[in-house]
């Protein structure tokens, strides 16, 4: 899969940009604050409808403008034309010139994996960051997962609203509990299936890029231990105190362990960094395995943070993306771009919101 064309209007520091990209390895070179990461952000936005910097739409609009436009042509098994427009007054998203009605139909037109400094949150951050990682991966591989997750969120919000009433109607509460359990069990089932497939990929990736011999293991810790119905009923008393639903997939945790010890608690800074990258590599490997073609890899300055040994562990993944006619985008400053990557690089100079092929 690769992105053949990118078009930006009033996005971040780009007034207008139209650029064609071939498959292969693209290096975006330039000084700080020239707009290198903004290119990655736009590509990530098309794939996931979110910014990986965790900001809302208004922050991505060029200063003083009303809205931004991001569009592109993704070439995978077929060709897809993506157009999105955002302003405070309206949002538009179209795939192949048809407005997108269901997001489940949209995801998959463009698949990306990003490597960025925010990845460290996967290890250090709250469990929400890890659930989001798993949810994105499942949404990228099963079209039915996202609607399921949205339905679950709706049932959860409704149930919480009931719990916040002064005297909740027990029968109404029970009918929403039924929905919550039915949808929640399905989510748990899909997560249970995913983690054992992801864990060995992450372990291999970790071993490849780390200097030490620690064994990485991912362990799914569902908030529901055995029976959602029974445990939900048991939590009723505590629910009355907290006035919100206390168990369910929205409280799940994915434990990251190095030699059976929690990486978040006992890992060194370097180990955490390596672990975050290993998770992303596992994501890319998993997507490649499922879809038969590599996702587009977006690498934001992470290489600069790694020593040569760790960098070289990342190389096979990047080279394979290259061989399978995949695509890699990587931002670097002139000093730290990885010369070991060889000759086949397509180099771009990013300067003040414009791209120039070198």
């Amino acid at each position, binding site marked *: 899969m690769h992105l053949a064309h990118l078009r930006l209007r009033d996005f971040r520091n780009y007034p207008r940009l139209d650029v064609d990209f071939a498959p292969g390895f693209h290096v975006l070179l330039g000084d700080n604050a020239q707009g290198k990461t903004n290119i990655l952000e736009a590509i990530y936005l098309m794939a996931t409808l979110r910014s990986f910097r965790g900001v809302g739409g208004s922050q991505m609009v060029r200063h003083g403008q009303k809205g931004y436009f991001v569009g592109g042509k993704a070439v995978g098994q077929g060709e897809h034309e993506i157009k999105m427009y955002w302003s405070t007054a309206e949002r538009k998203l179209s795939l192949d010139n048809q407005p997108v009605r*269901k997001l*489940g*139909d949209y995801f998959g037109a463009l698949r990306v994996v990003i490597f960025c400094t925010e990845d460290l949150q996967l290890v250090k951050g709250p469990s929400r960051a890890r659930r989001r990682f798993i949810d994105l991966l499942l949404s990228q591989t*099963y*079209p*039915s997962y996202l*609607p*399921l997750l949205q*339905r679950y969120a*709706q*049932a959860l*919000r*409704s*149930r919480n*609203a*009931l719990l916040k*009433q002064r005297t909740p*109607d027990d*029968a*109404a509460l*029970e*009918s*929403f509990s*039924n*929905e919550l359990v039915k949808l929640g069990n399905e989510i748990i089932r899909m997560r249970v299936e995913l983690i054992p497939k992801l864990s060995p990929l992450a372990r291999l990736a970790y071993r490849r890029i780390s200097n030490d011999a620690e064994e990485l293991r991912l362990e799914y810790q569902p908030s529901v231990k055995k029976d959602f119905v029974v445990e939900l009923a048991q939590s009723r008393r505590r629910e009355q105190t907290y006035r919100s639903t206390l168990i369910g997939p929205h409280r799940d945790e994915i434990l990251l362990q190095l030699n059976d010890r929690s990486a978040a608690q006992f890992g060194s800074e370097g180990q955490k960094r390596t672990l975050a990258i290993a998770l992303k590599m596992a994501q890319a490997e998993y997507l490649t395995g499922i879809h038969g073609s590599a996702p587009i890899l977006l690498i934001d300055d992470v290489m600069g943070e790694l020593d040569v040994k760790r960098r070289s562990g990342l190389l096979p993944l990047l080279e394979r993306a290259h061989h399978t006619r995949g695509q890699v985008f990587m931002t670097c400053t002139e000093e730290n771009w990885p010369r070991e990557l060889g000759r086949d690089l397509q180099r771009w100079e990013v300067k003040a919101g414009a791209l120039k092929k070198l």
Partner: protein
Amino acid sequence: MASLPQPIADLIGTLSRLPGIGPRSAERLALHLVQSDASEVKQLAETLVNARERVQTCSICGSLTEQSPCTMCSDPRRDAALICLVERPTDIISIEKSGTFRGKYHVLGGKISPLNGVDPEDLRIGELESRLTTEPIKEIVIALGTDVEGDATSNYLAKRLARPGLRITRIAHGLPAGSGLEFADELTLTHALAGRREME
């Protein structure tokens, strides 16, 4: 900038409270009305008042009607043992168009929606319960939507309405008629598979 005369501004304000009418549409309608023939506008106003005065909800089923009880509730050819439960009066029209349902109706007037502050007590469930005691009802067909709130409400009703000798069913959902599998999303297919039936 000169502002609009007060009566026009008032009209825009009133019109924009109608469903599906935004500020732009309201302005266009208002400007059209104040420039039309006075007799036409008068006729429109009369039609509005007339429609509102003559239409009421049926005291039995809750549908929109000119006389209460409505023609469907008083029609002896309809099967009084069979009640179809719908969310809104307009759903009756959809089902009637299919021409296959020969029972009577009951309009719930919404669905349980904690996020919008709609409790079971805000729905016409009590009315249905009293119908169960006075009418020879054998089966209730729940015909609510399949979103989370529709599902939860159906769940709730099945429990609350349960009594000996009363069948409670829910309309099937699955593949749309006359289309191929490729057009169905996964959730629909999952439901359709779960609700499969023996070939006759």
